[in-house]
């Protein structure tokens, strides 16, 4: 299938002024309070030029507040925000040179698609010739060139969101802020839009993106680095894969993907960054990525798809659990097991024959695919 990101992206890059390329975002101890209640607490985080950073977390975790602080819609009580080298903390929103896309698109209903896309350029008093050139480019970039004369009400949700992205990109923003941009779309269109966004960033590698979502799949698919927020604080931040494989704390392990977390004791550091621990009477090995000291109590984290029913040649950990439930989910079977008072989940192939409910089932996982997580919260 032909990518909707056609010649528009190339043209966009070709005319992008050098000063507009590759501006990062820096939060320096930013706190925001509403009516005496702190909703964002001393956030320090840097989004490098050309990078996609996703902020994820449950409702009320402060992720949207952080994005709105960059946009200028909330004023930090303390701390500074920089876009590129410019301190924008006290700069009004209309002067920050940002592109913003929100969950419900916020297209202007009385304007046609091309007028929506031209809005930012006209607001900045761009020359007519520039508007006439830039609008088709931006629409081509998101595959909406054929819909230029439609009204937003004549478009589907996915098409409206593409127009909203084109509108944000048309002004050549220094940074693009995406606030739950796919949340209002149904699952199938969301997947397709996710591919589109990934492709868009490949086409525009200089574009810096701050992406706020509560959806871990969106974050893992798009982001170079992920920040996990909870109760107004950044509780984990790092490259997406590293954060997934070696979560720095329990919340990060549970929020970013599903995780089995077993309390283990008697940590003994071993060679090659590994460690030996005990789960009750059972000896287990796992990666000691966070270099936890000997004797420490910690959590052993192993992802459901890394737990196997059949032992492999290099499997070094085995536990026996009791099957509690089996859910067939099409391309996978989700099995819930009881391990004493703890619950374990495993994801196994759909055709695998499993024992019945209440039967014991030996489980195997490699030590290299398990990681030790400190009990106390820590920033990754």
């Amino acid at each position, binding site marked *: 299938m032909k990518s909707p990101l056609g010649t528009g992206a190339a043209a966009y890059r070709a005319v992008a002024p050098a000063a507009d390329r590759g501006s990062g975002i820096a939060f320096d101890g930013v706190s925001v309070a509403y009516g005496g209640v702190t909703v964002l607490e001393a956030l320090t985080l840097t989004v490098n030029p050309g990078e996609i950073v996703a902020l994820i977390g449950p409702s009320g975790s402060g992720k949207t507040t952080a994005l709105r602080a960059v*946009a200028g819609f909330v004023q930090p009580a303390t701390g500074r925000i920089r876009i590129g080298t410019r301190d924008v903390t006290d700069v009004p929103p*209309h002067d920050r040179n940002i592109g913003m896309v929100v*969950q419900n698109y916020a297209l*202007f209903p009385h304007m046609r698609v091309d007028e929506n896309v031209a*809005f930012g350029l006209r*607001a*900045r008093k761009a020359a007519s010739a520039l508007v006439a050139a830039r609008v088709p480019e931006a629409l081509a970039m998101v595959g909406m060139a054929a819909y230029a004369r439609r009204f937003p009400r004549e478009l589907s949700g996915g098409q409206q969101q593409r127009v909203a992205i084109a509108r944000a990109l048309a002004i050549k923003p220094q940074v693009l802020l995406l606030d739950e941009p796919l949340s209002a779309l149904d699952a199938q269109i969301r997947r397709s839009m996710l591919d589109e966004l990934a492709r868009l960033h490949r086409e525009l590698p200089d574009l810096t993106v701050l992406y706020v979502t509560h959806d871990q799949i969106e974050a893992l698919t798009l982001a170079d680095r992920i920040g996990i927020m909870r109760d107004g604080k950044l509780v984990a931040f790092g490259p997406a894969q590293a954060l997934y494989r070696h979560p720095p704390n329990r919340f990060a392990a549970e929020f970013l993907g599903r995780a089995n977390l077993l309390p283990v004791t008697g940590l003994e550091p071993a060679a090659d960054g590994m460690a030996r621990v005990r789960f009750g009477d059972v000896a287990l090995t796992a990666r000691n990525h966070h270099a936890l000291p000997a004797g420490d109590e910690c959590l052993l984290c192993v992802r459901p798809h890394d737990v196997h029913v059949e032992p492999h040649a290099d499997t070094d950990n085995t536990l026996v659990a009791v099957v509690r439930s089996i859910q067939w989910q099409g391309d996978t079977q989700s099995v819930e097991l009881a391990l004493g008072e703890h619950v374990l989940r495993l994801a196994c192939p759909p055709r695998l024959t499993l024992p019945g409910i209440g039967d014991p089932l030996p489980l195997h996982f490699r030590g290299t695919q398990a990681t030790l997580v400190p009990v106390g919260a820590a920033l990754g």
Partner: protein
Amino acid sequence: MRSGSAGAWVLPPLLLLALLFFYPLLLIVREALGGDGQVPGLAHFGEVLGSRMFRSALWNTMVIAALSTVGCLVLGFVLSVLLAFTPFPGSRMVARLIDTFIALPTFLVALAFTFIYGSAGMINETFVHVLGVARPPVDFLYSQWGVILSEITVYTPFVMRPLLATFSQLDPAQIEVASSLGARALTIVRRIIFPAALPALIAGGSLCLLLTVNEFGIVLFIGAKDVITLPLLVYDLAIQQFDYASACIIAVVNIVLSLGLYTVYRFVLARYGRRRAGLV
């Protein structure tokens, strides 16, 4: 069977309506066309409608209604934008307070204005006694401008009500996104808020026009010598000169004018829908 019983339900209110509303109107039209014992005709119609007195009253009515409506639209729009988009502590209470003006008798404002702007009102008294000015300097109340100011004060809430309802439905994200795209406050008002408000402005404006064309209490209370409007002319001819035939002819014109404006108002509601016009 069902249509028969439905008809039985409809009949009593229709009869009541005819007795209380349509029959008096019919009497006015009959009186306008010649009255009891006379052959109905249009001769007197032409005489009254061609008179200088009628043309002057019609002109005054239209000018006052048009200027008052424009004033209500401008003031109503500005106040609504401020209340809806720059909320300050107590802004909701201020909006409700303005809303209560709808419940007050219209002539009360005219009465209140005589205490403020009248020749012996607060402002003139201050100028005369405190500043030693010889004659009261504020002298507009007993003119068409006094009527217009009073009508703007009374009828602005009729514009604000649908506007505030419309603004409460406007997605704040549209304004934020517009701002992020580089639009300043005035551009946002002009290009985002005003187009969204247009149906409510047209609906509120046509309602204002309808009400100001028929305004009687304020004009009577202000009592400006040269400001005779159609309703005041009807009152003058019928009550003070006992010329019921002429009064009824002018009343018929007033009814036609009102029904015409009401048709425009209904058309606006049908065109934009009650929701976009801020009426639901």
